[in-house]
């Protein structure tokens, strides 16, 4: 083939969608191809005389046009780095690089086509019956099988796409922009509804677009009326992917902003009108997959939309007026129609033969007719996807040879119209649709009124009069249609998967006696067409093989999405909130290594974490602890809440004091810890762990709202109202004194575990907590967040001569481990109850009630569960990695939960969970290192390795 465009291009057609004034050029397997704007990739190729576009999955048979629509199994191509592009739908565009898939060395000479010769051995499910011996050989077989994957390729260089989504709230959403969908839209909009009209093709109109001059006239009229209604938003090349609970619809726009960029609309429809039309069904006979075998709608699209001559000599099998219309179209454009087999009069196709395309067709009377085009029009499949998801179970009508929705099962907010609902003239269909549209608008208005009434932001509806009465919907006629599924020879049922009628019959014979089992065994309907062309034929063949009727055999469920959708469109921008402290600009400027902690980005360290830790012990350090959860508690009943949530006692906390507390869940498992300080008579500030901030806020609200609504407490999250920083080290007081006004910082006036408020660095309303997670003299400063950076910078400036350095989360982990403070979720786990965490001193079982009290009381009585202990390896240079196991013989008796080399003690230190009997001080245990070595370690008398008496914090 050369770059020529004209081999099969017809003179201008009345309804053509190509723009002959705008040529486009692209490459097909490296060779240039010219077409026109409006052409699809495949229509341009077909116009240039190309007939083969891919090779089939298993037998590598040549495949061409079948439906000339999105749903065309033979027209999947690779476009640039995009695999599996629907070539019969995707518009041709200048410069795109199109290649065929699954071909080697070339589309024309495909080496794997030898598989076709082995077809008799490669029956459906053959792989279940072989390759299992010897056992170790399967990987070798598997690697061969993987080479046969029929698909395009992904490129590691494809950019991370984030196409934006949007939400829509239409009163009426109409899925399908054919004549019925358009008529429904017009009528709904005229009744006052906002309408979203979604059409899968590149333009509104459905089958009218490739229809007669009369059809085109109706199309023009409907198009004008739609355009005249401001309440209708039209989306073309867009499709409703699925209907989900709450009448939520995922709408895929395939083109946006002039580019082939899919994006998603999340639409909440008050009423959904399903009007997708019908999909033409292929016929099953030998050779039915040869290039040149086409559906009647395919030839009509080629001729009327793209002005492409589908062949030179045609045989047509027709069972309906659409087949008859195809015959007329073919004749009109000069295709020689050598035979019309009319199925209504007993006509049939027995087989098609040829190699790279149809060469001859054998018809019912046994005659073999030479031709290069075989057109079939044997009936329709109702695309019931959106209805299945609405709880509908379509019912088979033998008279019409297709499925219909079960109207009785449709929910109130779903209506159907168009070909899926019945037959009739265009007038009958649009009349039905107009009634459906009006009724849809009425139901939507009723829903809208209910929602407005229930929504406090809404403007109360302006004096709505009496509710409109139900709009009657006429019955559509149903035309008789012969039942034509599989003919008298064996052909393909599933083109994507190379599954034949014989395969399905064999599956039934082997015991897979139902549509679902046969489908799973043969993989029929599992391919990229999702069963749109194959489902009904599959059911029909299985029904015939089991001796049941189609109705008894049922149908397979159409699962969403209705058409395949790119991961990028589904993901959208994938909102992933991130949180920063007010001091983040400083961290960025000072080389902080980021630590991702949930939504928070925190400094892990600025340089050497051990040196940062040592500086705290020797001089003074400052750490940004803004993510620590902070809850402002107000009201007379705060002590009741604290007594309920914490395991320890809170009734007597004086103003100006802070206290450490631990919370457990109802199963006694440690939930969170932190300190709470009393700022005023009925005013407290609670801190939680960083990761527990949201959880504990909800936890408190849950107890207040559902168990104790009579308690007078207000809980307000103020985590980020304050920039929080901890100044720790022997020089901490000297530094704080330099920047604080009106607070006596002496140890007597402001001792350990107390709280004060005052001015820091010129900023009012700061809260100072004297607490010590690091084990040093330290002040935790909570500063109004807008001034965080100012205070932070001021402290660093003022502390320069005192040796101040910022330290990160890693240094804090070292310091707290030296001090023996546990971290909830690291040193405790999902089963660690209070006493296992060493909280014997805190848990007050004499309180009337607190969360988790019964379980803790039973744990106390039984002495059950492991114990958290301080642990030191006998060899001080060995730091057992966290999660190293503690062994006793072959049994696991504990594990290291935290471990570091202590810069203060210059030895390894740990916290560990061990069985209670091993928790006694001085007990020697065996630690198994990840490399398998066993080392000895000693249980310490307490968790703290440095300054167990706490003298350093109290100076």
């Amino acid at each position, binding site marked *: 083939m050369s770059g020529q465009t004209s081999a099969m291009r017809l003179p201008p057609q009345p309804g053509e969608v190509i723009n002959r004034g705008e040529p486009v050029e692209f490459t097909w397997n490296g060779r240039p191809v010219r077409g026109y704007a409006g052409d699809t990739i495949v229509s341009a190729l077909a116009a240039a005389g190309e007939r083969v576009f891919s090779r089939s999955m298993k037998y590598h048979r040549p495949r061409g046009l079948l439906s000339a629509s999105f749903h065309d199994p033979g027209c999947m191509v690779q476009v640039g780095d*995009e695999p599996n592009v629907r070539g019969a739908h995707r518009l041709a565009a200048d410069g795109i690089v199109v290649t065929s898939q699954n071909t080697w060395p070339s589309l024309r000479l495909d080496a794997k086509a030898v598989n076709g010769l082995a077809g008799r051995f490669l029956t459906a499910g053959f792989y279940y019956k072989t390759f299992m011996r010897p056992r170790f050989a399967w990987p070798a077989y598997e690697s061969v099988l993987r080479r046969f994957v029929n698909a395009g390729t992904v490129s590691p260089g494809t950019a991370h796409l984030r196409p934006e989504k949007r939400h829509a709230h239409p009163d009426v959403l109409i899925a399908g922009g054919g004549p019925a969908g358009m008529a429904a839209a017009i009528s709904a909009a005229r009744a006052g509804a906002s309408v979203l009209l979604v059409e899968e093709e590149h333009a509104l109109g459905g089958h009218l677009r490739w229809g007669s001059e009369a059809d085109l006239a109706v199309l023009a009229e409907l198009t004008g009326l739609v355009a005249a209604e401001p309440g209708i938003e039209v989306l073309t090349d867009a499709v409703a992917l699925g209907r989900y609970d709450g009448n939520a619809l995922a709408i895929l726009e395939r083109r946006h902003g002039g580019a082939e960029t899919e994006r998603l609309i999340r639409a909440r429809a008050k009423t959904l009108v399903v009007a997708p039309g019908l999909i033409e069904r292929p016929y099953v006979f030998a050779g039915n997959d040869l290039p040149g075998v086409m559906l009647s709608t395919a030839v009509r699209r080629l001729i009327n939309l793209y002005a492409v001559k589908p062949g030179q000599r045609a045989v047509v099998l027709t069972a309906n007026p659409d087949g008859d219309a195809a015959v007329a179209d073919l004749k009109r454009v000069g295709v020689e129609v050598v035979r019309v087999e009319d199925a209504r009069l007993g006509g049939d196709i027995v087989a098609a033969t040829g190699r790279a395309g149809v060469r001859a067709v054998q018809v019912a009377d046994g005659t073999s007719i030479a031709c290069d085009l075989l057109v079939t029009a044997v009936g329709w499949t109702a695309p019931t996807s959106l209805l299945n998801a609405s709880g509908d179970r379509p019912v088979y009508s033998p008279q019409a040879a297709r499925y219909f929705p079960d109207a009785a099962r449709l929910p109130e907010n779903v209506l159907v119209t168009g070909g899926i609902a019945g037959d009739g003239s265009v007038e009958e269909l649009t009349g039905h649709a107009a009634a459906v549209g009006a009724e849809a608008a009425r139901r939507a208005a009723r829903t809208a009124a209910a929602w407005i009434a229930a929504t406090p932001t809404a403007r109360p509806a302006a004096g709505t009069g009496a509710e409109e009465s139900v709009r009657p919907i006429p019955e559509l006629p149903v035309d008789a249609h012969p039942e034509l599924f599989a003919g008298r020879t064996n052909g393909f049922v599933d083109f994507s998967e190379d599954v034949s009628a014989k395969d399905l019959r064999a599956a039934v014979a082997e015991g897979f006696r139902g549509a*679902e089992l046969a489908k799973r065994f043969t993989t029929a309907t599992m391919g990229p067409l999702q069963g749109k062309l194959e489902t009904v034929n599959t059911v029909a063949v299985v029904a015939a093989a089991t001796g049941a009727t189609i109705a008894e055999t049922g149908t397979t469920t159409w699962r969403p999405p209705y058409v395949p959708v790119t991961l990028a469109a589904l993901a959208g921008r994938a909102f*992933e909130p991130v949180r920063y402290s007010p001091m983040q600009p400083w961290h960025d400027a000072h080389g902080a290594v980021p630590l991702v902690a949930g939504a928070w980005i925190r400094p892990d360290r600025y340089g050497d974490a051990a040196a940062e830790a040592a500086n705290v012990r020797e001089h003074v350090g400052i750490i940004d602890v803004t993510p620590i959860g902070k809850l402002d508690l107000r009201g007379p009943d705060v002590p009741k809440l604290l007594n309920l949530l914490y395991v320890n006692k809170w009734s007597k906390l004086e103003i100006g004091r802070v206290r450490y507390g631990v919370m457990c869940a109802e199963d006694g498992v440690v939930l969170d810890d932190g300190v709470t300080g009393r700022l005023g008579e009925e005013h407290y500030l609670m801190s939680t762990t960083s990761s527990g901030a949201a959880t504990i806020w909800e936890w408190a609200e849950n107890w207040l709202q559902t168990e104790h609504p009579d308690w007078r407490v207000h809980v307000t999250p103020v985590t980020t109202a304050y920039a929080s920083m901890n100044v720790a080290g022997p020089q901490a007081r000297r530094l704080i004194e330099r920047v604080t006004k009106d607070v006596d910082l002496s140890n007597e006036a402001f001792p350990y575990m107390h709280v004060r408020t005052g001015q820091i660095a010129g900023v009012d309303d700061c809260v100072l907590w004297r607490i010590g997670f690091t084990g040093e003299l330290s002040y935790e400063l909570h500063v109004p967040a807008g001034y965080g950076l100012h205070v932070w910078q001021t402290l660093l400036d003022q502390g320069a001569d005192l040796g101040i350095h910022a330290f990160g989360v890693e240094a804090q982990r070292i310091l707290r481990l030296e001090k023996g403070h546990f971290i909830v979720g690291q040193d405790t786990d999902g089963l660690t109850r209070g006493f296992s965490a060493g909280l014997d001193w805190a848990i007050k079982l004499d309180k009337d009630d607190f969360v988790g009290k019964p379980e803790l009381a039973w744990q106390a009585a039984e002495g059950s569960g492991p114990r958290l202990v301080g642990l030191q390896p006998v060899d001080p240079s060995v730091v057992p990695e966290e999660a190293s196991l503690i062994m006793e013989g072959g049994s696991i008796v504990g594990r290291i939960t935290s471990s570091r080399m202590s810069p203060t003690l210059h030895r390894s230190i740990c916290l560990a969970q061990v069985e209670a009997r091993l928790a006694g001080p001085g007990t020697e245990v065996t630690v198994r290192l990840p490399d398998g070595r066993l080392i000895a370690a000693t249980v310490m008398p307490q968790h703290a390795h440095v300054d167990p008496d706490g003298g350093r914090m109290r100076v």
Partner: protein
Amino acid sequence: MRTSTNGHRQSPGRSHYPARYSAAELFRRGLVSEAWPPAWQQQPMKGSYDVVIVGGGVHGLAAAYYLAANHGITDVAVLDKGYMGSGGSGRNTAILRSNYLTPEGVRFYDRSVQLYQRLATDLDYNVMFSQRGHLTLAHSDASLRTMRWRAEVNKVEGVDSEVIGPAEIKQLAPFLDVSPAARYPVMGALWHPPGGIIRHDAVVWGYARGASARGVHIHQNTEVTGIDVAGGRVRGVRTSRGDIATPVVLNATAGWSTLISDMAGVTMPVMTSPLQAAVTEPVKPFLSTVIVSGTLHVYISQTDRGELVFGASVDPFTSYSMRGSLEFIEGLAGHVLELMPALGKVRLLRQWAGLCDMTPDFSPIMGKTPVDGFLVDVGWGTYGFKAGPVSGEAMAQCIASGQTPDIIAAFGLERFGEGALVGEKGAAAVGH
């Protein structure tokens, strides 16, 4: 006769396959165009059976198979309200692994992997177990610590698992973004070479064929509507196709397990939630390992057909709906692209949902109940398929011997009353 690993002599539950499967037989039948006989028999339903198993998925069918094959108990009926494998067995993402956290969990699932490894030859049915390796990514130091914990317990139990770093991860899965700039940077992973994927339907069919060949009756489209209990023990079951007298009922259902147990008057600590999954169109193979991210709630594998199979954690509320949701595929796609940004143009083909029975400690409920003769093999959460063979083997032994086998002793219903939950809760995360 050979000895099963449980020490029971294999009784004369020999197979009577109408046709053995092999390449030679495939070739012969191809040459002479001889059809294959049915893989299993359709039997009339009897009025009584020694054992009735409710649920024709991998658990129920495996239990039936091992009852017949290991213990010679063949008067067994397997009932399913739909077709065999229509529940969780046909809806899971077919990932196998044994890298659990607790010793009892590791031993149990390791036994399952061992049985899976020889299943194709045991059942004369290619179940296509592809031991391509399983990567569980860690995106935080906390999750890295949990990975190491699992690795250490695995090693002690003799299961191949190790923690590896980003460079090694990149070699195993080149499409993964392991750069530190990722929104959720990959800090390491638990690498578990024996893990992999399998053809889930084939496991169901293989067990069904094996059980049927040993005399087990499989009744599809047979819904259990009641369980007769008198004097504290089971007397029979009522079904949509008639009543069956039996002294032993095994509840091997998923999704509806509380409804079946309710029929016997046994209340269970189970909440049912949908677990959704999705599959893409095929693309040429580029991913050879199984990839799991607990933080991003996603697991990814590529089948031999080229499809990418995705799963996630269970829906965030209880439901018996299997309709699937939009937010699931949206979140899933977002998370897949966080891990593998170059897959944006791959198309999602199909989504579906199965039902998971979640227990408070992410471990199953197996063995006897307060009602004599009513046994359960339920509460499988999101990990039931992995445990099919070992559960079938253990439940068959439990039924045959009347004793609870050691390998499932930790999973008894009584643990909830005793407050002795299984430690898998210790590191609850997405568990695939």
